Structures are given as C-alpha cells and as structure tokens.
C-alpha cells in the first residue's frame, strides 16, 4: 500500500499540544510516524512513498464540520454527497456531520447506512446525524441505539426545533442512554411565523416580518432547564448555530453550573449582521437569521474567551432558481464549506488575534470531541490520516463560480480569504490538491 510523506511543514496539532516543524509519514490510512525534519527514512523497502513538499505550509488535522446539509437522499439537485464532500475537501475538511432534514428524513438505520455506502461517492468521511424524532415531527422519539449502531454520531431535528417539553426531555434521556448528543436547532417557531430576517430596525425598514432573538434564547434556556432537571452527567445538549447574545449567555451560565451544554457558531454569525441583507439579498437569508451588531459582537467575544466549542458552517446549498425569488419566499441557508477556513484565518486569527492553534482546534479537535469521533481531530501517531495542508499567508479571493458545491448561494463571493488549502488528505488519500 502506498504511503504518503509530508515533509518540511509546520505541524500544528492543538489536541497533542504540538506546534513545530515535523515530517509526517502516513501509512495504511493512519499516522505512522512523526519525526524531526529530514529524519524520515523514505527508502525502507515498504513500497512506494509519495512525498508532499510542505515547506512554508501548515500541516494540521483535517477540519471537521459538525453541521452540514448534503441534501441526499432526495434533493440531489441542490447537492449530493459526492459534490458536498468535494466542496468539503476543497475547504480542508476531512469529515462532515450531515443533518437529517433530507427527503426522506434520516430517521431510520437504513437511511443512515445508505448515506455512508461507497456508492454515494463521498471523498471525505460522512458522519450522519440522525433525526431525533420520527420524520423530525417533534412527536415520537426514534430508536437511538439502532441509529447509533448504523453510524449516527448525534441526533437532531435540525431545521426544526423539538418544541414540546415532554418530547425534548424524552430525547435527552434516550440520547444520554445511547451515548449520543442532542443537537438542538433552537427556534420557537411559534414566534417566528412569517418572519424572514431578524426582528429589528432593518426588518422594519425593509418591510419584512421579523424573527425575534427571544425565539432562540427561550428554547436554549428551556433546554438547559431540562438538562439540569435530569441530573444525568451523560446528558449532552449541543446548541446548533448560536446567533444571539442571550442564548450564548445562557450557555455560559449552564457551563458554570457544571452542565454538559455546548454550542457552535457559524462564520456568518460571527462576521455578518442584519445590515448585510442589503436590499433583499437572499444569500444573506438563513435560519437563524443574521442578527444585530451587538449579537455578532457577542459571538466574537464568546469565540475569543472560549465559550464557543466549535465553528460549524451550516452548509446549506440551494439551487440558483430557488434563491432568485422574492426575499420572503426564498429558502433559508447558505453554503459554507469552502469559505470557513479562509474566513476564520482572515478574521479570527489575523484581525482578532486568536492563536492559530485555537482556530484550528475550533475547526477540528473540538468538534471531534463533541461528536465522540475516535482518532480524529489530531495527528498523534496512530490516529486516522486526515490532514489539511495549507499556506497560512496566502491571500485569495473566493469565486463562487469555481465552487465544488452544486450550489452558489453564498454571501462571501468575492471576499478576501486568508490561508489557501494546498492538499487535503482523507484517511491517507489525497482528495484535494491545489498548487496554484
């Protein structure tokens, strides 16, 4: 079997506490050796060894996006598992967790398995997140043990919240027993009906009905109360795409109280505000919506002081014709896999001075830990050979037309990115390369 040597780069592996020049040998899909520069024995007769010259580049654990929509089964015109994972590879991601709001909803072990079959053509690892309730209708809790053994890494009704207290409680109990996290899309849909952007001055000015921030924070607060009442240390609540200052404050407080409550933030929520909707730009429409500047600033603050556990893109592709409609009729969501690293390095690292290791940890080690992915999110010897190799100093402009995704719905077209992915290696195989 072919081995891969990555030589001359700077290895940044936050989980292992490593940030130094190292050469790495990958063999049989695992990290085989980590040695000082120039110390790899490349002619030991163990078959072909391909060498990547990583001089001047960062070598890091492959990125992990714990919140993507790959649209299969059933919505292949928006994205397929093949195109979505190709976009992931281009963005430096070696693993993605796929939300279950497909057609049909992934609420059964057969669908969970189907998504992972080689026939889907995934170029990086897909970890399905199974629906928390039957059909994601928020009524009947699924069989989590069966879904877990089929490969599900968490449960969620993403796209919708689990509204009923009794069902959410039951979900938390059953997931704790099965050893799965519950990922909640926190939105009290009774407060957001007809809304298409954040409730506030911008929505008033544009004549659009608003979605109040309380619709998010009140569900987060309710969920935290439910977790507290369970008194079960196995219970893990993860808040998806946190967008409001009050929801973050609730998570912060829950953690102080010793609860296992975690959260993710999407790049668009730490970069953009409701003002970026401009004149009805449907590429700035998603759920939860872009919020106020104060909410956006709270996201940045929480990223910097460590309350946020992961950066997740909520990659949500939609066909061009679906977005080229009246703002209130456009579907929610934007793509994110190819812009997450470039934006995080440009803003979090360069502008807001977050250390590189912490940025990478939010994009790899921490989501791996949240999902319980074994031997991923690190490049310690013996771990899975998921690697991203990027030029940290390269500035480039994102061109949505060049996207590997099937869809083009991004507000970041034409934006300046920092850090260019040169190679993405998934389980020892090169799945993306760009020497440009």
């Amino acid at each position, binding site marked *: 079997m072919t081995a891969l040597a990555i030589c001359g780069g700077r290895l940044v592996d936050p989980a292992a506490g490593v940030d130094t020049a190292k050469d790495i040998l990958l063999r049989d899909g695992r990290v085989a050796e980590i040695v000082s520069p120039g110390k790899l024995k490349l002619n030991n007769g163990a078959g072909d060894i391909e060498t990547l010259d990583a001089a001047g580049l960062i070598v890091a654990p492959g990125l992990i996006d714990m919140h993507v929509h790959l649209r299969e089964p059933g919505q292949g015109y928006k994205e397929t598992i093949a195109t979505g994972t190709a976009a992931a590879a281009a963005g430096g991601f070696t693993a993605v967790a796929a939300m279950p709001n497909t057609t049909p909803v992934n609420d059964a072990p057969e669908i969970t398995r189907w998504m992972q079959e080689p026939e889907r053509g995934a170029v990086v690892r897909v970890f399905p997140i199974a629906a928390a309730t039957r059909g994601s209708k928020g009524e009947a809790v699924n069989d989590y043990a069966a879904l877990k053994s089929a490969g599900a890494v968490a449960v969620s009704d993403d796209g919708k919240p689990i509204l009923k207290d009794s069902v959410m409680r039951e979900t938390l109990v059953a997931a704790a027993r099965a050893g799965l996290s519950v990922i909640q899309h926190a939105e009290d849909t009774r407060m957001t009906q007809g809304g298409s952007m954040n409730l506030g001055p911008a929505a008033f000015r544009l*004549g659009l009905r608003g979605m109040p921030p309380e619709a998010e924070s009140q569900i987060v607060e309710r969920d935290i109360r439910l977790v507290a009442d369970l008194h079960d240390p196995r219970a893990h609540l993860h808040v998806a795409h946190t967008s409001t200052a009050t929801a973050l404050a609730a998570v912060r407080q829950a953690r102080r109280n010793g609860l296992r409550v975690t959260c993710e933030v999407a790049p668009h929520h730490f970069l953009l505000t409701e003002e970026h909707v401009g004149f009805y730009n449907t590429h700035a429409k998603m759920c939860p919506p872009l919020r106020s500047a104060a909410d956006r600033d709270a996201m940045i603050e929480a990223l910097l002081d460590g309350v946020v556990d992961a950066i997740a893109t909520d990659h949500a592709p939609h066909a061009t014709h679906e977005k080229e409609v009246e703002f209130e009729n456009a579907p929610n969501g934007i793509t994110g896999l190819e812009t997450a690293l470039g934006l995080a390095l440009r803003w979090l690292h360069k502008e807001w001075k977050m250390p590189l290791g912490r940025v990478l940890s939010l994009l790899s080690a921490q989501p791996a830990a949240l999902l319980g992915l074994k031997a991923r999110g690190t490049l310690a010897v013996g771990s899975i050979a998921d690697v991203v190799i990027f030029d940290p100093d390269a500035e480039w402009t994102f061109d949505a037309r060049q996207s590997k995704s099937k869809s083009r719905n991004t507000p970041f077209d034409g934006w300046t990115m920092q850090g260019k992915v040169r190679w993405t290696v998934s389980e020892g195989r090169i799945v993306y390369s760009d020497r440009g």
Partner: protein
Amino acid sequence: MSPTATPVRRQLATPPVPASPFPYNSGSLLSVLDLSLDGLSQLLARATALENQDPLLRDRILAKRRVALLFYESSTRTRTSFELAAKGLGADTTLVSSLSSSIEKGESLKDTGLTLRALGTEAIILRHNSSGAPWLLEESTHLPVLNAGDGMHEHPTQALLDLRTILAHLRAGTGEVNAGTLAGVTVAIVGDILHSRVARSNMLLLPRLGARVLLCGPKELLPEQAAQMGPGIAIERDFDAALGQSQVIMMLRIQAERLAGLQLDLEDYKANYQLTGQRLAAHAPQALVLHPGPIIRGMEVTAGVADGPQSAILEQVRNGVAIRMAVVERALAADRQGGRA
C-alpha cells in the same frame, strides 16, 4: 430568570457592509432614496410642465414606447393612474396581472420579467405583495423598474404625490426644493404604520426636505423601531397631542389583509385613532388632511372629514397622474441617455 448578556469588552474591526449595487438602471424608481434633491426638483418641475402641456404634444413624448404594468395585487387607483400617465405621454401599455397570466401558473417574477423584456418592454411598473420584489425584478432585467408598491416596504410615487400636495398647500410657488423647504412643518402619519409602504416612503422622503414626521398609532401597529428608520422621525402615541403639533395629517387604513393573526380591537382603535370632525376642529383646525386611499369611511376617518374642507384626498389623486407622468418620462429618458445598466 434569564441571564444577562456579557458586555463586549473589545472594539474590533468587522467586515463592512458592501455598497448597494442598486439601481442598476438610472431610470428606475425603486425607493424615494433613488432621487437626489436635484432629481426631485426636476421631477416636480416636469410634473407641472407635463400637466400643463397640450395633450396632443404630450402624446408624442413617449410615442410607441413600450411600458408594461405588472400587477401582482389588485389596485384601482395606482394602476389606473400609472396607465393614464403612460398613455398620456403616448406610450403603449400592457397590463399583466396575476389574475390573467402565466403568473398564476407559477412562473417566477424573474422569468416573467425576462419574458417582458424579450417582448420589447422598455420599462416595467411593478406592484407586488412581497417587499423587495422590484429590486429582484431590476436585478434580473436591468430595465427601468418603477415601484408601484412592494409589500409593506415602499410606494415611492405615493410619497411624491403626497409631497406635491403638501407643497401646493404649504409652500405654494416653490420652485426647487432643498433640505430646508419643509423646515418647521410637522407631518403626522397615523394608524397602521407597521404594514404601510406609504408610511415608509413618506418617512424617508419628507425629512430630507426638513419636515418632521410624527408617527402615531398603537404599539401593535407602530413598533418602537419605526423611529430608527431615518432622521427626523418621532413617535407620539397620543392622537390629540400629535394633531396639535401637525400641519399635515396623513391617515392610513388598517390593512386587514396583512394583520396576520394580530388581534386588534377595532372599536378601541376607532375611539383612540379615528379622525372625526370634532377632533380635527379641537386640535388641528388648520391642518391639511391626506389619505392614500382606499378610504374605509367610518373607520380611520369619518365621512365628514374625508369630504370636508381640510381634506385634499381627491387632489392627491389628481397629483398622482402628474407625478407618474414625470416618473415614466424619467424612466425612458434615462434609457436613451444610456442607463447605468
């Protein structure tokens, strides 16, 4: 008890909001903000000139030019007014309404716009129930698009005809307008502000000429953030107090079709916000009364006030045709000079 948000300690640079690419076509009138004060002066002057021109000469200005009226909402007043204006300049008009076309078969606004353009349409007058639809249509076609009312957002020609009416009464003989033309004038806009595109366009237009806009209505129909829409806007919930401060009173209809589950006690509303002869005499005996129509007599205004001596409601309608002639002429004149498209 919900925990309070942690105050932000750092001052950080964040990504700027990109400049708006609109309008793509300099003949478009999507928002009242598309007009500079100079442009506004020219438009008002052209409205007067066109109104006074011999109809037989006027008829040649846009002879055989193709203008489409694309109406996704029923409208008598605005549609007829635009149609008379375009025809008055000699243009050929085509009415495409949602009740009698491919729209009801599910064609998208973009595709309808592209079809109209392929048919030789040179400008589109759009009335749509979704806020922002004219922006979508303009971006899709790059044609001059005239916003004839979009959802709860804007109705720029209504604000322009309201302005013309106000100027005729309060600033007769004014030629060019400037940032001080309406200094010292308070305009009360009363009623269902939340759902009103007429209110929004006036809120953006009148303060640019120095007027103060006073919004009046119950919380359900007038949220606090309305005052943040722009400069020169304040809220006065007490109707009598608002009347006492105003030289112009613009009454709005309750938009029952947009209430969307909002519970409103209409008797209570009438008691607090109906403009009656008694109220008018007591608090604003000199004020000009405007209403964009359609009027629900006995709801927001009494019949006596609607037909009374302070009412300029029919004058508004007349001004609408003059303003829309100028707006349609501007749309196609810009095209001849080469729009920004």
